[in-house]
């Protein structure tokens, strides 16, 4: 397999066709000017972003930060404002308020927009592919628009598209189009790439191939911001996860930080209520004040009061306490919360129908 990605990418600080503009004398420290690329700036900085459609605040004061060389996943239910946020960052939508800095450049300045088109790759949710030409022609055309593109052939091979390279885009499957759109987003070897649901609609094999490619990009130093509905995608790939709901950030951190610590889950037996079991359990565990109970989805959770990990000894304590409290039929298990648990806890379980 050819090594498509150059190892030196992480060292690049200037990739534009224009010479770096002069920074005005007397400029305040930390000020951002078009073309000036502070190497300590994050890949993406969004501050108090606002976007309104009609009478609806789709993005309502959203702030996030994505570091260079990291993969930041933006998670959220339908209509949370993920795509609108990303499109404001890509320059495809004009925010109503707030500030967006991409690679240290103010996104609102026209000079920045021209410069960022050289340095940022974009994969749209709808793909953005012309349907009549052949797949390889589309990719080679997009490559021609960049100053220093990567080779198209190895990229097609990496994404399993070699056999359909000469097929017209309209005859590709949804998954093949998705992979071709990803190839178009990265063929210019961008410093930062925005991927809007890059694996939506892919079968498991294609998804793994895309994940491998995304990992390679990150290892080569490319900053990545992706939106996704897939918790596994965020858990497996992301350095940091930003959970967005109703137009603002409700949580952010590493996947481990968001998941939380291992706890004991008690499945309430038939005939009992979760509140009664929790109360009985708390009384039976009175000698162990570090253990606290909580209700979640009809079950009772037992957690460490200070956020520490629970282990099998704690599991035995809880099982014994349940027996003493007369709830012999209850099932207990040591559980590590998944990102999906955390996501549902943060965004609720009700169905959403609105779209942003």
């Amino acid at each position: 397999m050819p090594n498509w990605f150059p190892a030196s990418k992480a060292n690049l600080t200037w990739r534009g066709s224009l010479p770096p503009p002069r920074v005005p004398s007397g400029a305040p420290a930390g000020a951002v000017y078009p073309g000036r690329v502070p190497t300590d700036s994050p890949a993406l900085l969004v501050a108090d972003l606002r976007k309104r459609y009609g009478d609806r605040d789709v993005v309502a004061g959203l702030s996030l930060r994505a570091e260079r060389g990291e993969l930041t996943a933006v998670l959220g239910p339908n209509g949370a404002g993920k795509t609108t946020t990303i499109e404001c960052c890509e320059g495809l939508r004009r925010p109503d308020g707030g500030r967006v800095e991409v690679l240290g450049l103010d996104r609102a300045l026209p000079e920045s927009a021209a410069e960022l088109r050289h340095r940022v790759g974009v994969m749209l949710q709808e793909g953005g592919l012309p349907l009549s030409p052949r797949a390889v022609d589309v990719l080679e055309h997009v490559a021609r628009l960049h100053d220093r593109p990567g080779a198209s052939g190895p990229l097609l091979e990496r994404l399993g598209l070699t056999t359909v390279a000469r097929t017209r885009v309209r005859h590709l499957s949804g998954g093949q189009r998705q992979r071709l759109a990803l190839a178009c987003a990265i063929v210019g070897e961008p410093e930062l790439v925005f991927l809007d649901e890059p694996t939506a609609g892919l079968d498991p094999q294609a998804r793994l191939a895309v994940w491998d490619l995304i990992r390679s990009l990150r290892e080569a130093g490319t900053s990545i911001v992706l939106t996704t509905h897939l918790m596994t995608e965020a858990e497996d790939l992301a350095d940091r996860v930003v959970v967005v709901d109703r137009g603002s950030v409700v949580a952010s951190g590493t996947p481990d930080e968001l998941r939380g610590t291992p706890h004991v889950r008690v499945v309430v037996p038939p005939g009992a209520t979760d509140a009664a079991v929790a109360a009985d359990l708390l009384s039976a565990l009175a000698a162990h004040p570090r253990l606290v109970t909580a209700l979640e989805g009809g079950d009772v959770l037992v957690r460490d009061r200070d956020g520490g990990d629970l282990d099998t000894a704690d599991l035995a304590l809880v099982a014994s306490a349940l027996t003493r409290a007369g709830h012999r039929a209850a099932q207990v298990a040591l559980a590590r919360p998944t990102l999906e648990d955390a996501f549902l806890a943060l965004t609720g379980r009700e169905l959403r129908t609105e779209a942003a």
Partner: protein
Amino acid sequence: MSATARRVWAQTRFETVAVLRNGEQLVLMILLPVIALVVLATTDLVPLPEPRADAALGGALAMAVASSFTSQAIAVAFDRRWGVLRMLATTPLGPRGLLAGKLGAVLLVLGVQVLTLLGVALAVGWRPGGVTAAQVGGGLLLMVLGTGVFVAFALLLGGTLRPEAVLAIANLLFVLMVVGGGLLLPLDTLPAPLAAVAAYLPPGALGEALRTLCTVGQVDLLAAGVLAAWAVAGGLLATRSFRWDA
């Protein structure tokens, strides 16, 4: 060639190849004008000024120019739906480069259309002897102005409505322009009230001016002015109304 020009040329080439490989586009932009030229030049179905082949060539050239309206309106509408315009606008090509590339492709295809029609016209009796450089320049001016008008209105239509609506409207308007707009047939074959209005609309002004140029050898400056005014108006409307996404 500068990097910007190189990118615009790449887009021009890409779009030109896409048009020339598309069967429907070839029918609309090449085959229909050729059929119209042959029928008008070799039959007396429609009264035309003499020599017939010259008048037919003028109408066919105008029809070829106007076909860019239907072609571009439909292409732009579907490109919007599929996000093609937005994707390309995020590359170093940028929105302006994309539009420049599209216009370049339209002009390149127009060159192919003109050469094809001139070849067919020779076969059906048109003789270019005595054509002056000023007449060639006048013809180019009229066709470029016509292209400007029709591309501007194509962007207005394709950049604001749903693709299905654009498909229907653009095809219908093309038929109306050809049959009753003075594009292919002389204005004096239309009812007088319609002819009076059509003379100041883009199809009528372009068709009549190219027929006059091909038969009499004179550039109709009033028609050129009418086309320029419509090009400016269409351009302003398109600039104000165009939406990049569907």
